[in-house]
């Protein structure tokens, strides 16, 4: 279907189902229950899941396929956000021009930065991209204040021209009148599910981008990128010029990042320089490696995983812990909480760091490899107990790529 192999089609369908039903899937616990803490189905977070999913999918086209590790991709994210906000300021709150411009400008910047950085490979390439991103960050923070509004961040003011803004259009980002912040809440007994326009727009765009990534992975171009990762010498002596291939991959991934930035600004019309900081660049590297670099679904999983941690674990404070462990005797309760305390709340980075280390050491292929191993183990067990092959394959919910 859609020019994809059967395996890829089913992967795409699984991702489509997961994203479309995310408001249900992410809100499994009834409102007000002790576990409601772990619900992630609120619009803000869901938007971030898919936007960072786009960012990581794009990053994976560069890092996963060619092996070139860019430490400056957040710069494109920031550039995308600034472009989108400028469109809001000049033209009005319809998000289409903003998103289009964010992709174009980030593509142009990627072309420039890639052209220079790709003269080197390995660690030198990483350092060059890092330098560029930090330069962009510093410029956005200081010298380019007229363009970026410096520390305050770029936002839309009432005095802005907004040439195409009309009275009957909402005064927040919208798509031909449909407000991005518009949310429909479905109450089902104790459960509550939020359906947010912005989320669904981002999710549909992410599906499109995911589909495009699959096509790139399976195309001759994708094959060449994999070849570059494996052996550039042979590439050269096979009559192929690696440079344009890597540059194209760099620009494509830069445009993905720009799109993510544009969408971010469309959800919340604000762009700050901190979006370009090196920690943001490092985050997408973590997402890709944690999920599984070079796999199709890995970056999306990694993005979801990290964003979930950042937003859910960071909210577990001592009060919440006391609620959970209230059943323990007093001394025990305090003891357990003292032990758990550094890992949750503000300490969520510690948990994430430990998890990241565990994944890199024990599952170099990321979460995807973990899924594959579990599937393989289940298959073996199913095979041993003499069940039919159909049963075994029905456990195969984690796609190979």
């Amino acid at each position: 279907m859609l020019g994809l192999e059967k395996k890829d089609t089913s992967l795409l369908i699984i991702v489509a189902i997961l994203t479309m039903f995310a408001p249900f899937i992410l809100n499994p616990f009834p409102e007000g229950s002790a576990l409601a803490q772990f619900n992630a189905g609120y619009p803000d977070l869901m938007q971030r899941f898919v936007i960072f999913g786009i960012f990581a999918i794009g990053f994976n086209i560069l890092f996963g396929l060619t092996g070139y590790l860019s430490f400056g991709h957040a710069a494109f994210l920031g550039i995308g956000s600034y472009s989108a906000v400028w469109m809001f300021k000049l033209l009005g709150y319809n998000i289409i021009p903003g998103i289009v411009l964010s992709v174009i400008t980030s593509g142009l910047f990627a072309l420039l930065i890639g052209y220079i950085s790709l003269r080197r490979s390995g660690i030198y390439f990483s350092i060059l991209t890092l330098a560029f991103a930090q330069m962009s960050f510093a410029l956005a923070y200081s010298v380019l204040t007229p363009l970026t509004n410096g520390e305050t961040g770029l936002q839309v003011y009432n005095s802005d021209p907004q040439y195409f803004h009309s009275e009957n259009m909402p005064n927040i980002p919208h798509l031909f009148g449909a407000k991005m912040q518009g949310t429909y809440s479905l109450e089902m007994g104790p459960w509550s599910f939020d359906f947010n326009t912005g989320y669904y727009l981002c999710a549909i765009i992410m599906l499109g981008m995911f589909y495009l990534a699959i096509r790139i992975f399976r195309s001759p171009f994708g094959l060449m990128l994999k070849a570059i990762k494996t052996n550039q010498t042979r590439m050269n002596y096979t009559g192929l010029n690696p440079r344009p291939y890597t540059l194209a991959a760099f620009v494509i991934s830069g445009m993905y990042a720009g799109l993510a930035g544009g969408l971010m600004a469309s959800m919340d019309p604000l762009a700050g320089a901190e979006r370009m900081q090196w920690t943001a660049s490092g985050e997408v590297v973590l997402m890709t490696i944690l999920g599984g670099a070079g796999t199709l679904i890995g970056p999306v999983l990694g993005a979801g995983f990290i964003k979930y941690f950042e937003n859910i674990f960071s909210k577990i404070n001592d009060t919440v812990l006391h609620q959970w462990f209230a059943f323990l005797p007093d001394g025990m309760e305090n003891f357990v909480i003292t032990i758990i305390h550094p890992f949750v709340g503000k300490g969520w980075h510690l948990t994430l760091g430990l998890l990241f280390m565990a994944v890199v050491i024990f599952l170099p292929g990321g979460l995807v490899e973990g899924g594959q191993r579990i599937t393989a183990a289940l298959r073996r067990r199913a095979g041993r107990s003499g069940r039919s092959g159909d049963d075994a394959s029905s456990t195969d919910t984690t796609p190979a790529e």
Partner: protein
Amino acid sequence: MGILEIKNVGKRFGGLQALGDVNLSVAENTVHAIIGPNGAGKSTLLNCLVGKLIPDTGSVTFQGQSLLGRKPYEINQMGVSRVFQTPEIFSDLTVFENVMIPCFAHRDGAYKLNGINPVRSQNDIKEMAEAILNDVNMIDKRNMVASSMSRGDKRRLEMAMCLVQEPKLLLLDEPTAGMARADTNNTIDLLKEIKEKRDITMAIIEHDMHVVFSLAERITVLAQGTPLVEDTPENIKGHPKVREAYLGEAQV
């Protein structure tokens, strides 16, 4: 006038004169071996031909066109392929993918984006790749990951990758280095077969005299950066200068 003309080529590395004044002509459709003791400058000469090194002096022309200053991929696109001493293959990819990549290079040139149509829809490429894998008897290994194969098979694969581009000149850098006797003989047979089937010129750098004398039609002996003798294998075998260079025998 040969297909490959090397004239007065010299190359220095600091104080070391790697190549003195090399003149060499490789005639079309022959197998030309370049032999010589370690440090004779064989590999340096080869690197000067493929664009990895630029000689300090002299000229290198292929079919009348200069090769100097061209990038390796440009030289390859002109019809010069190289087999390395340690096989340079795409070790993370499967055998079939390995062979498809040069097929694309042959069809599309040095760069073509080609980012949307899937690889599996490229039937002409698949046929080309299958044909060459049949030629080198590797079709049953098509789905193996290249890094998991034996050295002999890697070499075979590398050869297939070079041949599928239909090069006019194939440069082989010690094609049997580090191989078991049986693998060496297989490689010799393979090269003979290749030579019979197509119009191809081969330049072989080799240590193993067994290989050289079973393949070469012309032999150049290199010593200390300069060619000592160039002759047919029969004449080289008993040549006193060659014995001297190789064995250090005093001339009688």
